[in-house]
């Protein structure tokens, strides 16, 4: 089970990012628990300056803009 956090104040891009991660996980058959982090202080504590951000098992893998589907697949592998 991968622990995934999507960082973002709740704008449309952040929603889309979370959906993309879920879709990609379903496609690859990877079990994930996605948590949305919307608190600004919590977002900042991860050290990113642009949202949406993605954290997988405690490691920041992406910040700023929508991720690419093939990148998500790589992070989940």
């Amino acid at each position, binding site marked *: 089970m991968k622990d995934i956090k999507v960082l*973002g*104040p709740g704008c449309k891009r952040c929603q889309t990012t979370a959906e993309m991660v879920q879709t990609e996980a379903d496609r690859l058959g990877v079990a994930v628990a996605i948590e949305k982090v919307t608190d600004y202080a919590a977002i*900042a504590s991860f050290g*990113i*300056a*642009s949202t949406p951000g993605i954290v997988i098992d405690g490691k*920041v893998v992406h*910040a*700023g803009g929508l991720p690419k589907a093939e990148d998500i697949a790589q992070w989940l592998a």
Partner: protein
Amino acid sequence: MTECCSKTAVDSIPAEPNPTASPSTFAWLAGTLAALTAWGLAYAFLQPAADWATALLPLEPGSHLAEAVAFFLYDTPKVLMLLVLVVFAMGVVRSFFSAERTRALLAGRHEGRGNVAAACLGIVTPFCSCSAVPLFIGFVSAGVPLGVTFSFLIAAPMVNEIALGLLWALLGWQVALAYLGFGLLIAIVAGWVIGRLHLEGWLQDWVRNVRAGAVELPGQRLTIVDRLKAGLDAVADIVGKVWTWVIAGIAAGALIHGYVPAELLAAIMGREAWWSVPAAVVVGIPMYSNAAGIIPVVEALLGKGAALGTVLAFMMSVIALSAPELIILHKVLKGRLIAVFVAVVGLGILAVGFLFNALFA
């Protein structure tokens, strides 16, 4: 200005071009070249095509309606085509910058040169409005001085790169360059002033307690194809979002062009009416439009004899100071600091308005 901007750009370009350019890279480059050529050809034929289309309509030549329709038919494809080109170019340029990179470049910079660098980076660093707060916290907690952060935050909306590209194409390079220069000047001076005032205490309390970690993002080595794709993504994203604003702006411009008497407009927004600059700022602040939507209005106003400084002041206040952005910033700034921000930027815009009216007589 050129020093700070070009330096960062050079830093971020990979030292050597990819030596093993694959066939798909050539296909992308050839495709881009073909698309640009097609764009140029189509653009050259816009005026005859618009004239032809207008002539087909049952309109009395020279009437108000015919003037308005001709403006609309010519300007709509023209502005949309320019918009696509400008947004594509900016998408490619922006792939060289990221908010995290910018923060690292600005961390520990001192005031003065830091303000200059921040203002320049504010133009090219991509961030969406919902990122304003994380970005602000990220900057301040990483040790970027408050005044330098403000230079960035002011330059980002004030010197809008889309507005810049469209001004260049529609009104000439002098106007575009003056807009760029004075926009940067406002961002630099306003940020410096806010830094001098030492207003750190006017941040919301929780902001000062946030300790941000530094993050190393996995190195993303982007290829030329990746950057061209980033340009296309930007076109799909931004043009897809703003095209309705643009058409509304062109329609407003067409009405002004066809129906507003030049004498009336010159009396209200002309150089003789000194009060028109502050009035334009006061009217512009609560309006929320898109940079791309406001340019056709600017074009039409200037065509009717409005003064350049007044029109630019109006445009800058519409773009740079918007209510939604101020509401978002209230999460990190106390009301007093927001008021200082609005006042300093507003004064800067006023100064630009008066200066332009004096310079471009």
